[in-house]
C-alpha cells in the first residue's frame, strides 16, 4: 500500500507552506500532490514556484510528485493557467475537471483522475482509461462496495485496472461554488475578498443552530466538518483493491497522521476505532461514524 499526500486544500502563506513541506519531505510518503485546486485567486505559489518546490522535494524525497489542477474553472485566465499546468513538461498531472482531461489527452499525456471527476461506473472509467488515466481517485462519496463494483466492471470490460487511490484522511471536499463562503461569512464581496481565507488555515467551522458540527468553509469549497479517517478500516481498504491512501493536509498533526498510517501498512495493528467520520466508506451518510461490529 502506498501513501500519498493530497494537495493542500487550504490557503496557507509561504512560510506555513514551506514549513509543512519540509516536515513532509522526511516522511515515508510515496506520492506528493502539489498545486492549488480550490481558488485561482490564492497566490502562495505561482506555477513556476510549485515546480521549484517539486524539484526541491525530489532532491530530498523519493516520492513521486504530481501537480493537481484547479477544480472549478470559470474565467478564461483560469483556463490559460490550466493549459500552462498541463504543459509543465515535468510532472504527472491530476485532472480535477474534464477540461484538464481534454488538454492532457490532446498532449497524449497520462494523468491521474482526481476526486472531483464524476466517475461512478466501469463504463465511464474505461472512457478515461482509454484516454490515458493511470490512477483513479474515486469521488469521496463512493463506498467500498461501489468502488469494488466499478473495478469489477472494468475487469469485465477487459481493461487493466488503474491504480486506485482512496481519500483516507482529512476534511472531505464536498462542494464547489461560484461564491466564496469565507468572504460571505466575513461580509465581504468575493471580488474584494482580501484573501481572508488565509486567516483560517483549517477552514471556518459551520454548525447547526444546535451546535452540531456540519461543514468546514474553505473559500468556494465546502468540506466536511469532521475529518474522515479510514485507518481503522485498513483491512477493507486492502481487500477492495486500494493501491494508495490519500492523506489530505491539515494545519497541525500531519506528521503523526502519516506515521500512524505508515505503521499500519508496515504490519502494525490498525486501531480499533478512531475519531472522525467514515460513513461514505460504509455506504451511509458521509457524516456518520460506522464501527465494525464488536470492535468498539
Amino acid at each position, binding site marked *: 500500500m502506498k501513501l500519498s499526500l493530497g494537495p493542500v486544500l487550504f490557503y496557507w502563506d509561504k512560510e506555513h507552506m514551506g514549513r509543512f513541506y519540509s516536515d513532509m519531505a522526511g516522511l515515508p510518503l510515496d506520492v506528493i500532490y502539489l498545486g492549488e485546486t480550490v481558488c485561482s485567486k490564492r497566490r502562495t505559489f505561482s506555477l513556476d514556484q510549485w515546480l521549484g518546490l517539486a524539484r526541491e522535494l525530489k532532491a530530498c524525497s523519493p516520492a513521486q510528485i504530481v501537480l493537481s489542477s484547479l*477544480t*472549478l*474553472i*470559470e*474565467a*478564461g485566465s483560469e*483556463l490559460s493557467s*490550466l*493549459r500552462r499546468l498541463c504543459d509543465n513538461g515535468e510532472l504527472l498531472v491530476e485532472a480535477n*475537471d*474534464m*477540461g*484538464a*482531461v*481534454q488538454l492532457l489527452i490532446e498532449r497524449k499525456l497520462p494523468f491521474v483522475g482526481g476526486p*472531483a471527476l*464524476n466517475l*461512478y*461506473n*466501469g*463504463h*465511464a*472509467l*474505461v*472512457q*478515461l482509461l482509454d484516454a490515458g488515466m493511470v490512477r483513479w481517485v474515486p*469521488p469521496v*462519496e463512493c463506498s467500498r462496495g*461501489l468502488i469494488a*463494483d466499478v473495478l469489477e466492471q472494468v475487469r469485465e470490460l477487459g481493461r487493466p485496472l488503474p491504480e486506485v487511490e482512496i481519500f483516507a484522511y482529512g476534511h*472531505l471536499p*464536498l*462542494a*464547489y*461554488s*461560484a*461564491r466564496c463562503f469565507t468572504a*460571505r*461569512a466575513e461580509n465581504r*464581496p468575493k*471580488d474584494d475578498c482580501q484573501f481572508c481565507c488565509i486567516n483560517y488555515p483549517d477552514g*471556518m*467551522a*459551520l*454548525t*447547526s*443552530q*444546535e451546535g*452540531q458540527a*456540519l*461543514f468546514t*468553509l474553505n473559500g468556494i469549497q*465546502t468540506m*466536511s466538518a469532521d475529518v474522515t479517517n479510514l485507518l481503522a478500516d485498513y483491512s477493507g481498504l486492502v481487500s477492495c483493491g486500494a493501491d494508495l491512501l490519500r492523506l489530505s493536509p491539515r494545519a497541525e498533526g500531519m506528521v503523526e497522521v502519516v506515521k500512524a498510517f505508515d505503521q499500519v501498512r508496515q504490519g502494525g495493528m490498525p486501531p480499533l476505532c478512531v475519531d472522525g467520520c467514515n*460513513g*461514505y466508506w460504509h*455506504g*451511509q*451518510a*458521509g457524516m456518520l461514524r460506522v464501527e465494525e461490529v464488536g470492535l468498539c
Partner: protein
Amino acid sequence: MQLVCPAGNLPALKAAVRQGADAVYVGFRDDTNARHFAGLNMDDKQFDGAVAFIRQHQRKLYVAVNTYPQPKIWARWQRAVDRAADHGVDALIAADPGVLDYASRHHPHMALHLSVQGSATHAAALKFYAERYGIRRAVLPRVLSLAQVKQVAASSPVPIEVFGFGSLCIMAEGRCHLSSYITGESPNLCGVCSPAKAVRWSEDAEGLSARLSEVLIDRYTPDEPAGYPTLCKGRFLVDGKRFHALEEPTSLDTLDLVPELTAIGVEAVKIEGRQRSPAYVEQVTRVWRAALDAHRSAPASFVVKDQWRQVLAGLSEGSQTTLGAYHRSWQ
C-alpha cells in the same frame, strides 16, 4: 433563443406546450434522472402520451437520463437510453461518460445534450464531450458570470443552453456531495438533493424546526415564512453568527438578461422545475414566452414588464429572485 420548459408529469407538459414552450424536458420514473422524487416523472403510459402530444404540436421532447449509474444498476440507464431512442426523442440529456458513450454508439442519430450535471464550465471541457460523443448542445452550470458565459459561448465547439429561471443551486451542479454527506443520498447517484423522506418538521417553544436526517437545517419563528429544508439554504452558525451561511432561499430570474443572452448567441434558455406543479410550469412558460416574443419582435425597445416580474416572484423560493452568478457581484 429556444425556450426549454420542465415537465414532471403529462399535465405539466401539456401546459408548457400550450403556453409556447419550444421544447419540454422530462425524465423517466426512476433514479436515471436528477429529479427522482416520489410520484414525479413519466411512467410508460405518460411517456407515450408525452411523445404523442409533442408530435401533435410539433415541439421538441428532451429526455434527461442525467444521473450517474452505478455498476450494479447500469442496465437501467441503458434501458432508459434505448427507450428514449426508440421513441425518437429530439435529444437525450446526459452527463455520465459511460452513458454518453453508449448512446452515441448505439443510437448515433439521437442528439445528445450535455446535462448541467456534467459540470462543464469552459471550452476545453466541452470539447471533451463534443469530440468523443458528438454532443450537439451543452447546458452550463449556474456558476458563470454573463461575461464568462459569453466567453464560453464564443469558444465552445457546441451551442450553449443556460438556465433562465427557477430554483438555484448555489454549488456547481454535479460537484456537490452535501446531500449525501448528511442524508446518504446525492444528486449524482440518486437524483435527489435533501430528499423529502429525510425531512422532519417539529414545533415547540423555540419555533418550527426543519430537520434533514435529524440535522437542524433551520428554525422559524411564527412570523417567518418556512421553506423546504434544502440544506444549502438553511441558517447555520459561523463564528457565533446565525445566518444563511451558504445561500438564502431565492430563485434565479434572468428576464433582464434576455437581450444579452440573445446577443451572446445562447441557443436555448432552460426553466428549472420538473418537481413543480403544472400551474408553475404554465405561468413561468407564459411569462417567458411573452418576454422572448417581445424581444424578438422589437429588440431595441425590450423592457421587462412589472407584471412578468410579479408572476415570477410569486413562484420563487422565499419570493426572492436573483441574477445569480450572471451578475458579477454575486460571484
